[in-house]
């Protein structure tokens, strides 16, 4: 339940949505874009980060589209994860998505909601980070297409009122060799500890992680070390770990030491499956 004072709006166009956001903000109604809404509802139940008005973007065709051409794959922000999995246009994304929450929850969780969420896992962003995807962002000035690696730094750096419309990935990334790993502390359905995703392009590994630091990331410095073929796998892994962008998480889901142990094993899996020569 959200509080009784919450207002609901369902625009049918991007311009209507961003103008609504501006007007509601001006009226001090703390607007929030709402797609699957799972996080808004779960945090709202705890009176955390509760909006005063919600703008449901599921009525906007641009946010619901899913298009595959010979050049690109375009996924609207409101597309549920299970639809992405069943279409399976981007197998790495399917694999990563398949491990998020559970099957029923993924009927509601949308790709845009996962990427823009506040809970730090946000695993669905990993395949896009290593595939140099582009984000279509709507604002009062119109629509911009921005490289994800220029606008995602720990979180999606949207300005107030900007709306993630869709994600575009060039076709040649969709069929590259890939690997993903999700390690949980408990069972197959517990909360995630670490999720890793990797692709190999032109002989070079690209890697991204969630659950090591309090944000998902792709580290170019780690990639440089992991691709240093003059060194052994073990040395490459230790050098890559030195380049982590933030101290390692140490919480109830896993200690810093345990996360480091898991990370080493995931990196070794990546190298063994796709790393090639062990120098």
């Amino acid at each position: 339940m959200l509080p009784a004072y919450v207002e609901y709006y369902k625009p049918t166009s991007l311009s209507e949505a961003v103008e609504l956001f501006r007007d509601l903000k001006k009226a001090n109604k703390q607007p929030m874009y709402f797609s699957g809404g799972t996080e808004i509802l779960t945090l709202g139940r705890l009176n955390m980060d509760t909006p005063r008005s919600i703008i449901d973007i599921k009525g906007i065709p641009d946010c619901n589209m899913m298009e595959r051409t010979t050049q690109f794959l375009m996924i609207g922000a409101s597309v549920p994860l299970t639809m992405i999995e069943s279409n399976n246009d981007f197998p790495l994304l399917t694999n990563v998505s398949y491990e998020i929450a559970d099957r029923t929850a993924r009927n509601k969780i949308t790709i845009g909601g996962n990427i823009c969420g506040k809970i730090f896992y946000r695993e669905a962003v990993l395949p896009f980070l290593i595939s140099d995807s582009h984000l279509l962002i709507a604002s009062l000035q119109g629509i911009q297409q921005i490289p994800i690696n220029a606008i995602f730094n720990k979180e999606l750096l949207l300005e107030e009122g900007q709306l993630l419309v869709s994600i575009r990935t060039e076709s040649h990334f969709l069929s590259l060799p890939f690997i993903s790993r999700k390690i949980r502390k408990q069972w197959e359905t517990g909360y995630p500890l670490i999720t890793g995703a990797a692709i190999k392009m032109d002989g070079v590994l690209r890697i991204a992680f969630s659950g090591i630091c309090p944000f998902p990331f792709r580290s170019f410095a780690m990639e440089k070390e992991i691709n240093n073929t003059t060194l052994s796998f073990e040395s490459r892994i230790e050098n890559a770990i030195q380049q982590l962008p933030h101290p390692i998480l140490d919480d109830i889901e896993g200690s810093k030491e345990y996360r480091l142990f898991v990370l080493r094993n995931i990196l070794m899996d990546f190298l063994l499956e796709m790393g090639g020569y062990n120098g």
Partner: protein
Amino acid sequence: MAKDGDRTFEIELDINGEMKNINIQAGETLLHLLRNKLSLTGAKPGCLNGDCGACTVMVDNLPFKSCIMLAIEAAGHKITTIEGLRGTSIQEAFIQHFAFQCGYCTPGFIINCHSLLLNHSKPSKETVRSWLSSNICRCTSYQEIEEAIWSAIENE
């Protein structure tokens, strides 16, 4: 439906094949509406966090956790709760395999399994496991529940 921006709306809902006109609050969950305004108490409040699956209902034949869905999002869709299922093969299979103990999670499991059967006539073991992972049974009847769904699949 009332105009956008209201805090309360009158919506028309298709629930278990019946059309209902009902007033809702914008921030009201589908679970709250079902239990407190329509007296459909089969969907159970559990975690209220989208984790346990006790509140699962079908929306257009797909399972959704009604605690993380606003009632207003259900407008225009076909809602099926456990009260809307009569004499289905999965209900019979749950009885035959004694796939419950306290019964609190049972409506959610049955709705989820029924939806699986509607959407996959011959699901793989991996598909069944994936769908069943959406629901939690604190009495740990998982073995019996899995046996029940496989028997329903074989009898389809």
